């Protein structure tokens, strides 16, 4: 695996952010520089309001994750950020459309980015899309 990993999360489906956070965690602690780009409907899952109310869109596994009290995706991301190189960016176009500010997003989000900037980050990186 290369030393750079870019993950694009576009779906609002809870499980997609969850698997992204698992892959990102293990990669980040293995010396891989990980960049996450949250865009489209996925942005809703990174709003403080959604997280506070656990108002996620999820399927059968999401229900089990809640029931078994497994760590949630944002907790995994947070832990990974403490242990390795991981940055989370939210798509500025979506923020513009939804009229949201950085303060509306959960604290694990580092910044908002446009596509040209993220394409720059993706250069030479392996990319996974959810």
């Amino acid at each position, binding site marked *: 695996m290369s030393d750079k990993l870019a993950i694009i999360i576009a779906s609002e489906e809870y499980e997609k952010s969850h698997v992204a956070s*698992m892959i990102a*965690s*293990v990669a980040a*602690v*293995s*010396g891989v520089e990980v960049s996450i780009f949250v865009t489209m409907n996925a942005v809703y899952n990174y709003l403080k309001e959604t997280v506070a109310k656990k108002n996620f869109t999820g399927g059968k596994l999401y229900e089990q994750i809640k029931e*078994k009290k*497994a*760590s949630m995706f944002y907790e*995994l991301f947070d*832990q*990974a950020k403490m*242990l390795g190189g991981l940055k989370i960016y939210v798509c500025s176009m979506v923020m513009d459309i939804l009229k949201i500010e950085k303060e509306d997003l959960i604290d694990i989000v580092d910044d908002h980015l446009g596509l040209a900037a993220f394409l720059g980050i993706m250069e030479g990186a392996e990319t996974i899309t959810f």
Partner: protein
Amino acid sequence: MTEEELKQIKPTVTVDARGTYCPGPLMELIKEVRQQPVGSVIELISGDAGSAKDVPEWLNKVKQEFLGVIPGDGYWRIFSKKVKDM
């Protein structure tokens, strides 16, 4: 190391990560590997079947030493040694 040899080991620290799900046990181990001095033996107890395969893979990747696994009843005791700073 054989299972018999592993049973003789006195770990510097034991991390009981039973009750956490993948990648929880691995992340718990990593926190400990970072904190302990070089030369420490770390025992990880995991209830996640994947850990017995995941941990050696990670140790190999970050060039730390894998000593072996003792399978228990519904859990695994995984031994590793910190051989260099990280």
